[in-house]
């Protein structure tokens, strides 16, 4: 997103937040428009239209699955459905409006969109016939979403599909090399949260407008945070009442976010370690400088976007959860992960780590606690790695952090009763605190090598330079 796009979005948020009536519906229309507007051009070009449309469609289907007949009434949801359909059709009609600066003009013919809406309605009708959904439907939905997620993260898996579709249409398949489905990583995790909670009986169903607003809430659509449905709708349904302090806080978060992202992170991007520099730098000291630049850049970039999202959310009356809490100033890896991309780690804790450790602890065959911790931490971190992309680098990054968390856990456990007396003095505490921060920051920074470099071979060669053994 550019600065000008963010200012336009901020102005829209300011206006929508001031609405006394129909805020939810207007927000819905704006959010759907924004996901089309921000969608990067995707080859084949028609996907630029179909990807945001698919986001809306998948969200509607997930809503049907998580709703109950009480909130699924036509009367209650017709305005939201009308808004959704209107924005989709309007975006499609851009082939006639020719507003290229807003959205692609290479949209499909209206009859294709009509056919798509009919198919969606039929599916919706079929799902809506259930009063109570069989659990297998939730399992199918979860697996389907995960498969879709994997598919977009592995473009090579999609190539055969595109070739088949192109052959069927009698066209050349050329042009498809990668898929950038804007915001789907976040959308899918919000959807999974609602489906899993609904299946567990923990979710209070909400009307269509509230559900779609939650999933594609435009301030947090592209870079999170991942909120929870109940908390989000509570804020959404409350009147927006911003006091003086709130206005100041909104401005502070928004402008601080802009500064972090567009001044600090973008400047650090010029000198942050990458594949090219990895081959050009032979001095250990400079390699550390470039690595630290990457560490700081990724933090300021991501936390800057989060600040902007939180600021804009406040304008709309929604207090989005915090995603960062000074992670690089934490004295150990556990605390780092409790303060880095917090909403994602909380998601994994709720839906993977905790159920897994519970299952292992309560299994008939007793599993030693260290093994439970090892398996749960490594598998959780590998999955978090895979969430970023299905590559060997992200798997290794996950393993690096999983192993780090396990070692730190065991070390803390071991040292609990063995701490020397000096460690409890104020000086000792301070030394431990600062050395912990230093070690954690460097451990995390070394882990970023798997993130930023394209092959493990490059990671090893950079590590060799960093430690002067090249």
């Amino acid at each position: 997103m550019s600065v000008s796009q963010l200012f336009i979005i901020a102005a829209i948020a300011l206006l929508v937040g001031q609405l006394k009536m129909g805020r939810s519906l207007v927000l819905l229309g704006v959010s759907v428009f924004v996901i089309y507007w921000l969608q990067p051009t995707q080859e084949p070009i028609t996907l630029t239209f179909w990807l945001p449309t698919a986001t809306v469609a998948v969200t509607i289907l997930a809503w049907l699955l998580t709703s109950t007949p009480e909130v699924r009434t036509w009367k209650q949801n017709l305005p939201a459905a009308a808004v959704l359909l209107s924005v989709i059709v309007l975006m499609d009609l851009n082939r006639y409006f020719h507003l290229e600066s807003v959205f692609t003009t290479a949209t499909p013919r209206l009859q294709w969109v009509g056919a798509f809406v009919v198919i969606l309605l039929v599916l919706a009708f079929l799902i809506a016939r259930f009063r109570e959904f069989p659990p297998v439907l939730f399992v199918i939905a979860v697996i389907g979403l995960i498969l879709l997620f994997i598919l977009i993260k592995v473009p090579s898996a999609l190539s055969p599909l595109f070739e088949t579709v192109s052959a069927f249409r009698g066209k050349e398949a050329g042009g498809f090399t990668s898929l950038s489905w804007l915001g789907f990583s976040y959308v899918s995790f919000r959807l999974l949260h609602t489906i899993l909670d609904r299946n567990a009986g923990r979710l209070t169903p909400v009307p269509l407008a509230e559900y779609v607003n939650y999933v594609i809430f435009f301030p947090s659509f592209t870079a999170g945070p991942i909120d929870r449905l109940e908390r989000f709708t509570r804020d959404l349904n409350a009147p927006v009442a911003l006091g003086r302090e709130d206005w100041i806080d909104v401005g502070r978060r928004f402008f601080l976010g802009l500064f972090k992202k567009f001044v600090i992170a973008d400047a650090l991007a010029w000198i942050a370690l990458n594949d090219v520099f990895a081959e050009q730098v032979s001095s250990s000291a400079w390699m550390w400088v470039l690595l630290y630049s990457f560490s700081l850049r990724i933090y300021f970039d991501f936390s800057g976007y989060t600040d902007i999202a939180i600021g804009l959310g406040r304008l709309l009356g929604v207090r989005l959860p915090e995603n960062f809490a000074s992670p690089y100033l934490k004295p150990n890896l556990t605390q780092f992960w409790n303060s880095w991309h917090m909403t994602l780690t909380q998601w994994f804790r709720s839906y993977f780590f905790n159920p897994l450790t519970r299952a292992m602890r309560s299994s008939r065959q007793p599993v030693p606690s260290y093994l439970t911790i090892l398996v749960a931490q490594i598998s959780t971190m590998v999955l978090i790695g895979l969430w970023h992309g299905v590559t060997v680098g992200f798997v290794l990054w996950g393993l690096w952090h999983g192993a780090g968390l396990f070692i730190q856990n065991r070390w803390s456990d071991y040292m609990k009763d063995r701490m020397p007396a000096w460690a409890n003095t104020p000086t000792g505490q301070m030394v431990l605190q600062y050395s912990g921060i230093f070690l954690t920051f460097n451990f995390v920074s070394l882990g970023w090598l798997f993130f930023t470099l394209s092959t493990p071979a490059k990671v090893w060669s950079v590590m060799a330079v960093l430690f002067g053994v090249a």
Partner: protein
Amino acid sequence: MKSEINPVRILVKALCLFVIINILYALIDPQVSQVSGYNLVFPGRTRLPFGVGGDPYTVTVDEVDAMFASHAISARKSAKEYRVALLGDSSVWGEDMGAYEMISEQWNALNIQCEGKTIRTYNLGYPHPSVLKDLIILDKVVEYDPDLIIWFVTLNTLISQRINPFLTANHARAVEMVETYDIPFTRSRILRGYEPNFYEKTLMGERSNLARQIKLQMLGIIWTATGADNNPLYIHSDFPSYAIGDDPRYRGMQPSEDIENMLLFSALTAGYDIADPTPVLIVNEPVFIVNAESDAVRYNAVYPRWAYDQYREYIATQAQSAGWNYLDLWNAVPSKYFSDAGLHLSIEGERLLIQQINPVLQSIACDTTP
């Protein structure tokens, strides 16, 4: 009593402060282009900063003070140094070459000694063919006490009336040169129009320039760490296009036309005047010759024979009558030592060119007869 914060008041104060800072910036006009970490924190660059292709790790800064501030020539000259400044266009700058592969660095690698001094060459070429641009750079170079200036020219350099980004960024100097030395640069009136208005002098108006200068300073870290001033991914060593066609026209002119009046020789004369007493060596740079025997129309994709032959004749006559140090090396490098179909030499080609110039360079520097 706790004072209450009023967001509207904060907004108004912030706006006032913003306006005041912008006005002050425009009035004070701080010479930020001369503030540089190069030659201080980072080593000076071996050539002027120029963005190559879409490389995000390069930056183009056209303002001549900022360009020189980042260059190694801004470092203090040692008593044992014989300083040679190389002027020219992209062929001197070293398009398609790394920072330590282009002509000045190859020259320096020879470590030529002369009367107890080491000849050290500085690449001050810049990728816009324009003798007016070269003249502005020469005017700046003399501030750095050169012992010799080698000025590479070609037909495109001497005939160009184009207003390139360098000239717009340094329009005041360009206009001054044109007027002081009576150079028939037909678009000087347009250049004068680039005089910034008040808004363009404010922080807001200057933001793009400032951002590029900040980027130039940040890239000092990369320059120091890697010794690379551009991404090797953007360095192309081979251009396969050798198709030259048989169009006899040159810039829309037919073979019957005379180009003499279009050649800006007065800029070369001005260069001599400005450099005086520093000697200047003018080199007609080598051009790619596709097939000298069989092709009767063109030497290459850039030059038809008639235009280039006329140019060679005119510059040779001019050099002789003005008493310039002039070296015509137009065909000194065989075509296989070019990296593309008209202008740029390969690394081996640069080496050959250096061999050709060295005797003359040493004759000037060491006062020996070549």
